């Protein structure tokens, strides 16, 4: 039952991810007074890509071909460990939050290798920038989740969410810091403004797009889909860790329905906030990103220290 | 008891001691090599005389031998040899003037006092004579070193070296009535050989730096060449 639940939830994750992307795009268009595409446009895109015959550039090796599958797989596994509508998932025991970060790293690594596999300037540029950013973002994220883990005395996400639920409404200063750090990291890792702009193909500003420039057809579809899942995953993390209320603690139908409704609601709200910020802010220069990320890193470490000093003090 | 209270023997010993110290001082102040050697010869003879006297008064027959040895070696042989060398090397006109002679003599006096101070602890366990003897011989040894330090002539170094030996012998004779015979002979042999070797070296040095000025023997040093 539990395993079934986990698999079902994972599938839900995979299925809902494009929807979220579509929603964000829609809200953004509205805010920019543009005519919005339909909510389901991402699905259509994926289907179109899936139908197309992929093109392999000449210098590419097997890494180029294998990368999309590994990226997608690692993202899906990451999604499997995060409680979406319910907690007490068996998958959370297979991989805890540190492994979650590890999954992201794995996917990123292969994406970067694929970017360098062709030997174009863009590939190298994107890969270099991606690794630079992630090498600052990853520790920030680790610190943020460690704050949670230390106050919950576990790195098991289900357990952690459970702990937050049980402890009820506790105003933890550390969580404020951690959430700030996590949000900043999420923006950076999912390649949104102001760190990267998924919509642009202007050579010198690309990061994520520069790496996948050579991809086409089903591989591009997989990568796009994976990044949508990743975006949603971060949203779910923020939503369920810091505002877990409403998530199903038992596998009864109405609890699950309740959980589903709640998470959709939370994600919608988060998406609106994200769209707002993207509309309000402009993309920054690549060498200002470090300041942004080191701020995120600082926030998370501060969160941890504030937990150590203010909360766990005996 | 005062000096007058001492036995005649002791007085004589002390007299000789004073004389030998005096000769050391003379050598220290002497700038002509020839006279330096001369004074050295006198010192040697004084030493021999002391030895003989000790031998006679306290009758240590074996001391006669050492007296004869030192008379022959220090009084006659080595001075004559040195004298010859000086003439053959044409150094008899040469002046080996020392800078600040006054300071050097002052230093000598200080050494005298110092050697008394050093040998004071010995006084408790031995007659006054020995104390003075040891003090004087120590002074002579130190004066000999001082002589070597202040002089630039190789010959002067030899003389200083030999006068150190004189000091030793004086101590040996007066305080311990001579060393065992083996040692005496060995030391004498060493001194003799040393004298010969010195002779050899004079010529070697001469042919390498055509003078006997040891200050010019300073090729081998660790200080920066530049």
């Amino acid at each position, binding site marked *: 039952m539990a395993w079934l639940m986990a698999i079902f939830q994972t599938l839900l994750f995979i299925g809902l991810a494009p929807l979220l992307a579509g929603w964000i795009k829609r809200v953004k268009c509205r805010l920019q007074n543009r005519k919005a595409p339909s909510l389901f446009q991402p699905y259509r895109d994926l289907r179109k890509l899936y139908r197309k015959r992929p093109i392999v550039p000449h210098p590419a090796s097997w890494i180029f071909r294998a990368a999309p599958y590994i990226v997608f797989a690692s993202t899906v596994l990451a999604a499997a460990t995060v409680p979406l509508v319910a907690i007490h998932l068996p998958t959370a025991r297979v991989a805890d939050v540190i492994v979650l970060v590890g999954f992201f790293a794995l996917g990123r690594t292969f994406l970067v290798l694929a970017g360098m596999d062709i030997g174009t300037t863009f590939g*190298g540029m994107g890969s270099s920038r991606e690794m630079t950013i992630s090498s600052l973002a990853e520790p920030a994220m680790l610190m943020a989740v460690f704050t949670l883990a230390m106050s919950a005395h576990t790195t098991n996400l289900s357990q952690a969410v459970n702990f937050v639920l049980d402890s009820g409404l506790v105003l933890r200063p550390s969580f404020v810091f951690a959430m700030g750090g996590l949000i900043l990291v999420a923006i950076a890792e999912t390649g949104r403004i102001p760190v990267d702009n998924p919509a642009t193909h202007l050579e010198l500003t690309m990061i994520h797009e520069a790496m996948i420039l050579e991809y086409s057809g089903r591989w591009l579809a997989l990568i796009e889909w994976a990044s949508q899942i990743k975006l949603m995953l971060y949203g779910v993390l923020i939503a369920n860790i810091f505002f877990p209320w409403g998530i199903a603690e038992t596998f009864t139908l109405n609890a699950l329905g309740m959980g589903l409704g709640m998470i959709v609601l939370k994600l919608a709200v988060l998406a609106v906030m994200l769209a707002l910020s993207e509309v309000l802010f402009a993309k920054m220069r690549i060498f200002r990103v470090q300041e942004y990320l080191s701020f995120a890193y600082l926030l998370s470490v501060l969160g941890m220290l504030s937990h150590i000093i203010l909360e766990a003090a005996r | 008891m005062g000096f007058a209270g001492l036995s005649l023997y002791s007085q004589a010993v002390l007299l000789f001691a004073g004389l030998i110290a005096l000769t050391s001082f003379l050598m220290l102040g002497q700038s002509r090599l020839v006279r330096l050697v001369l004074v050295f010869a006198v010192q040697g003879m004084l030493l021999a005389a002391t030895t003989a006297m000790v031998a006679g008064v306290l009758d240590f027959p074996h001391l006669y031998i050492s007296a004869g040895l030192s008379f022959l070696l220090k009084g006659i042989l080595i001075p004559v040899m040195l004298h010859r060398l000086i003439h053959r090397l044409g150094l008899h006109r040469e002046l080996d003037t020392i800078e600040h002679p006054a300071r050097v003599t002052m230093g000598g006096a200080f050494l005298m006092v*110092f050697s008394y101070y050093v040998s004071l602890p010995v006084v408790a366990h031995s007659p006054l004579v020995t104390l003075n003897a040891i003090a004087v011989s120590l002074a002579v040894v130190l004066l000999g070193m001082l002589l070597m330090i202040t002089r630039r002539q190789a010959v002067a170094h030899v003389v200083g070296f030999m006068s150190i030996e004189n000091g030793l012998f004086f101590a040996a004779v007066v305080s311990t009535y001579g060393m065992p015979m083996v040692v005496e002979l060995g030391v004498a042999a060493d001194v003799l050989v040393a004298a010969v070797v010195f002779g050899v070296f004079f010529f070697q040095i001469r042919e390498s730096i055509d003078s006997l000025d040891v200050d010019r023997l300073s090729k081998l040093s660790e200080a920066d060449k530049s």
Partner: protein
Amino acid sequence: MALFLAGISVLAALLSGLAALAAGPNGPLRQGMPGWMEKPLFRILRENGRPAPGRFSRLARTIPFLLLGVSGGFSVAAGIIALLGGTTRTATLPLGLPWLNWHLALDPLAGFFFCVLGIPLIAASLFGPDYVREFECGKHTLSVLGLFTGLFVAGMELVLLADDAFLFMIAWELMSVASYFLVAYQHENAANRRAAFLYLLMAEIGAIAIILAFGVLAAFGGGLIFEELRNASPNPAWSSIAFVLALAGFGMKAGLVPLHTWLPEAHPAAPSHISALMSGVMLKIAVYGFIRFAFDLLSSVLWQWGVVVLLIGSASAVLGILYALQQQNLKRLLAYSSVENVGIIFTALGLALIFQSSGQSQLGTLGLVAALLHALNHALFKSLLFLGAGAILHQTHEQSLENMGGLIHRVPKLAALFLVGTLSIAALPPFNGFVSEWLFFQTALQAGSIQSGILRSLIPTASAVLALTSALAATCFVKVYGVAFLGLSRSRHIARARDVHHPGMLAGLALLAICCVLFGVLPTPLINALGALTQSLTGFVLPNISALGWLWLTPVAPEVAAYSPALVLLGTVAVGWLCYYLLYRRTGLEPRRAEPWDCGFGGLTARTQYTSGAFSMPIRRIFEPVFDTRETIEEQTEGPANTRVTKLRYQFQVLDRAWLVLYEPSGRAVTRLARWVGRLQTGNIRTYLGYSFFTLIVLLWVVS
């Protein structure tokens, strides 16, 4: 039994050295070999007739490595037996000082490190024979290489076996000296000579520090046998002195910042299979020494020590990887990353010390296990990478990343094996590097259970640094793999490189790669095997390491943290295959080959792709103050008013700050002091007489 096997392995190592000597161009094995044993021997070695006296037969190459392999095998066996048996065997040899014979002992700790030593040794001995072939025509005789390799290995094994300070130091120094000769093996280029000199100097100073550390304990314990040292109970001040000395000595060997500078010089200078042993194994021997001293010999532990180790360790970790990122020479890069990994190990040890001193024995044990596990893992993947670098060197005679590229098309098998090493060292699940880092984080997360607030806030900071380190490590090795193996080849001889078709080489690499995956996927049995070890060191066994069964890894408690690498691997493969099946098999759309997008400037060249220096440039910018960067730009301009740039030459080098702050000043100080002392010896004999005179005066005045 175990001790006996270990002894055999030591003997085998020594024998291999002697065999190499004997098989030299004019050694007995080559000259005075009777015909009846010559024929079959050569037939076995598929060699027709006696080779020309100058050259080396396959005999000279094979036999020593064969014996080395035997030694490795026996040491693994001995290690496993000692580790599982959990008892300590001791023996004494009638060697050494009259009142202090050589004491040997093999306890679980030594057994574990025997395993750490054995696996890379086997791999190296598989790898070696084909690798050293290129040396046999060189001007340096193979027998020297073989002899000192044997001595080197024997020294390391003896260090593990030693049970008294004297033998320990003899073996330790033997290890250093032999490896010094190996570093200086190709001494015709001055860099290697300089590296060897620096290496031996540091080894000497470090060894003296260790001797003094032993001396402190011996002064209190009254003897030099480890048992007596254990019974020594010095007061905190003295034991702190001993600890600091030991940390300096072992840390110098292990390459902790700021005593690490010899390491990136020396390790690349040696032949690659030696670099693998030095980086993969010798540093672990230093770690062993530290563990032996701090956890076993020292009776009591203070928390300040843990703090010191923690700080130094994390500093080494982050600085090491930052410097590694900036290297263009592959072997230098690997050496710097060894500094990083040793830093990680010592950080874990620092955690263990802190927890130990604050009474949290279980957590201390956890930290210790993390350190040991990382030691093993690093031994595996670093040897793999060094041997891989050696294979590249052997195929292409190229060390600089700037000239590589596209090797995955030239040497596919090597590329695949190297990828495993890359992923492991980048600490990605489900490979082994990740497991030990995961354990480290699990340990660090328990900081809340410590009383003192300083420590509670210190440990998270350290773990933050470590998180940064692991992210940077991923960057670094992605760069290595991407620049060396992917893209277009940047130089002609790389483009013409031939594939590796030496079964031995590939076998050696494959062995290590398999171990990397195996220990990554099934760490739990391994950690369970460490029970006897931790029992003997900390008096504690991790209780519920496999509470959920052997598939799961639950260091503290199932509900606190669990990780099942096997299932992770399974899931990844399953999902990946599923996508592949759905997307490829169903549609059956064959991909089409085409030119990549080149912005319309017809044709991509290797010159347009990112170089390794360019790849790490952002990091260099971000961490500017850490590096001492020298950048030079020469440009030739011509045309009216020199506006048109015809030739542009840009070069930069990144130097180690430790040189400027530590080494050059001390060197200058010694020279200045020597000059000053030199003035004393004026060469004037009267001055000399003056010295004697005044010495005499002063002494007389002193005594009377």
